[in-house]
């Protein structure tokens, strides 16, 4: 039981955080949390409810600004204050709450905040959106993902099931992420088949060289795809383990505090 987390000290983490603190009133969501994501890896993040997993990734995705601590990307200090700034850095996130707009259709949701405008006068002067292009692209992305069957791409998202909405959020992140993809519970609302598709997708994304952060309560999923597992406990990183060297039971013991984080 001496296996330390596999570290490659010569490689700079693509995304790194040190001593993150985030308080909400007298609740401390993050209590000096560290974090490292290596290039091209799938990093599983696990922890009990309230351990601070979502808070951690929100500090990396611009959804929240940490009270203390630093974030680095490719070894350089970055300050990410808004989701748009994270997006500009190539970080795409699927939030636990999904962050889709129910009243808009699927294509509008995929392109929210980065709409395609028509070429020429219509787009430049009249600011007209190219709905056709957005819908065609959206359809392409949704079917590539293959995790959902939709009747019409013009369907409002509120007419989709919870799992289908999750599909929209995952498709959005997968389509636009260029440096890091963060998935907070991406399979929580999905059936067995759809979960399988998302796991496939995660692996395909990694094959393309993109690192993925996967937060999940589903141990088999995490053990299936993760290269390393970040165990979050009481607002901090307890340790990082290699799933090939630990059993799920050992990991759960560390996560719950039944076993020391070695």
């Amino acid at each position, binding site marked *: 039981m001496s296996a330390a987390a596999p570290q490659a000290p010569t490689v700079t983490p693509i995304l790194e955080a040190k001593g993150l603190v985030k308080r909400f009133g007298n609740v401390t969501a993050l209590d000096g949390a560290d974090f490292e994501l290596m290039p091209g890896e799938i990093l599983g993040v696990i922890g009990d409810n309230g351990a601070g997993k979502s808070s951690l990734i929100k500090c990396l995705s611009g*959804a929240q600004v940490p009270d203390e601590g630093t974030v680095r990307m490719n070894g350089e200090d970055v300050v990410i204050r*808004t*989701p*748009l700034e994270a*997006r500009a850095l190539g970080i795409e*996130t699927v*939030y636990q*709450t*999904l*962050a*889709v*707009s*129910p*009243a*808009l259709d699927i294509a*509008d*949701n995929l392109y*929210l*905040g*980065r*709409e395609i*405008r028509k070429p020429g006068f219509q787009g430049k002067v*009249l*600011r*007209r*959106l190219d*709905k056709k292009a957005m819908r065609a692209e959206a359809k392409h*992305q*949704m*079917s*590539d*993902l*293959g*995790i*959902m*069957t*939709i*009747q019409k791409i013009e369907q*409002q998202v509120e*007419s*989709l*099931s919870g799992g*289908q909405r999750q599909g929209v959020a995952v*498709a*959005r992140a*997968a*389509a*636009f*992420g*260029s440096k890091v993809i963060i998935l907070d519970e991406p399979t929580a609302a999905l059936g067995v088949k759809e979960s399988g598709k998302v796991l*496939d*997708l995660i692996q*395909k*994304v990694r*094959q*393309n060289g*993109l690192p993925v952060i996967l937060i999940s309560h589903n141990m088999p999923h995490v053990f299936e795809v993760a290269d390393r597992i970040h165990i979050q406990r009481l607002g901090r990183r307890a340790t990082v383990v290699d799933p090939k060297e630990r059993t799920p039971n050992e990991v759960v013991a560390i996560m719950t505090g039944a076993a020391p984080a070695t």
Partner: protein
Amino acid sequence: MAELTPAPAGGGSAAAGTTTVDAPGRSAGLGARIHNTLHDKATLGPAIVLLIALVGFSVFTDRFLAANNLSLVLQQVMVVGTLGIAQTLIILTAGIDLSVGAIMVLSSIVMAKLSADSGVPGVLALLIGFGVGTLCGLINGILVSRVRLPPFIVTLGTLNIFIALNLYYSQSETIRGTDMSDVLLYTGNTFAIGDTRVAYGVLLMLGLFALVAYALRATAWGRHVYATGDDREAARLAGVQTTRVLLSVYTVAGLLCAVAGWILIGRIASASPQAGGSANLDSITAVVIGGTSLFGGRGLVIGTLFGALIVGVLRNGLALAGVDVLWQDFAVGFLVLTAVAIDQWIRKVKT
């Protein structure tokens, strides 16, 4: 935009997989079918009500369908209709603006007084009036989007401030149309279509409806207005600059109120600090009857045109039929309640 999603391994499972997710209305009962239809087309209800009112009054009163009467209805609607555009934008963001009427009157007084008393050229007076309205909207917008105060409270406060400023500046005196530039009265002028006379203010209102409908439907800004009203936090996380969107909505609404002020001068051929007292509530009425949800994110500006027309037609038709004005109010109130009840029903989650 990086194209990262790899090609489907199994040959486009979803492309062919248009399996029925839920077939809306196919096997559902009549109630569910109506529910779905209204859900998809929120303005269908108002359009039908308007049609019924038009047909009904044409049948029951012989004077209703007369060309000059219909043009009168349009003129009666042009002020509230224009205010309704502003109100629609704000309600789409899940807000409410109690100050639209006050901004309108303040702007109209500024225009009129600059022209009548200060000798400012008409066009310049008009533009300054537009500027005042825009500034009022901007103040509302800053308080709502940046200071994050509830819109109801913000506009309740600014409503009183704008009224006070208006009474102070106008010294509670009406400015007669004959004292001001023709430019300010232009919206009340009419031109002939056949034997009907149409006011330029009506054209202006219709043009603004078309413009805002276009902006909401076909531009990114419009999509962002809906997304922000639907769920502000979700929109923010998805990359919408919600603070900016809100600020722009309130500012544009202020400008629209000032334009309504210009139309108001044309309509009453003067500028009165006491005018438009019921305009706030009338604009909200038009929006609600037009099928826009007070919870934000749902509705179309064209519905507000229907809503304003329904109220105008109803009041006019009932008056022609000799019905006491109190029953006109009753009917309008009834419509508002019906519209809100229908909205609640439409928004119920499908099971």
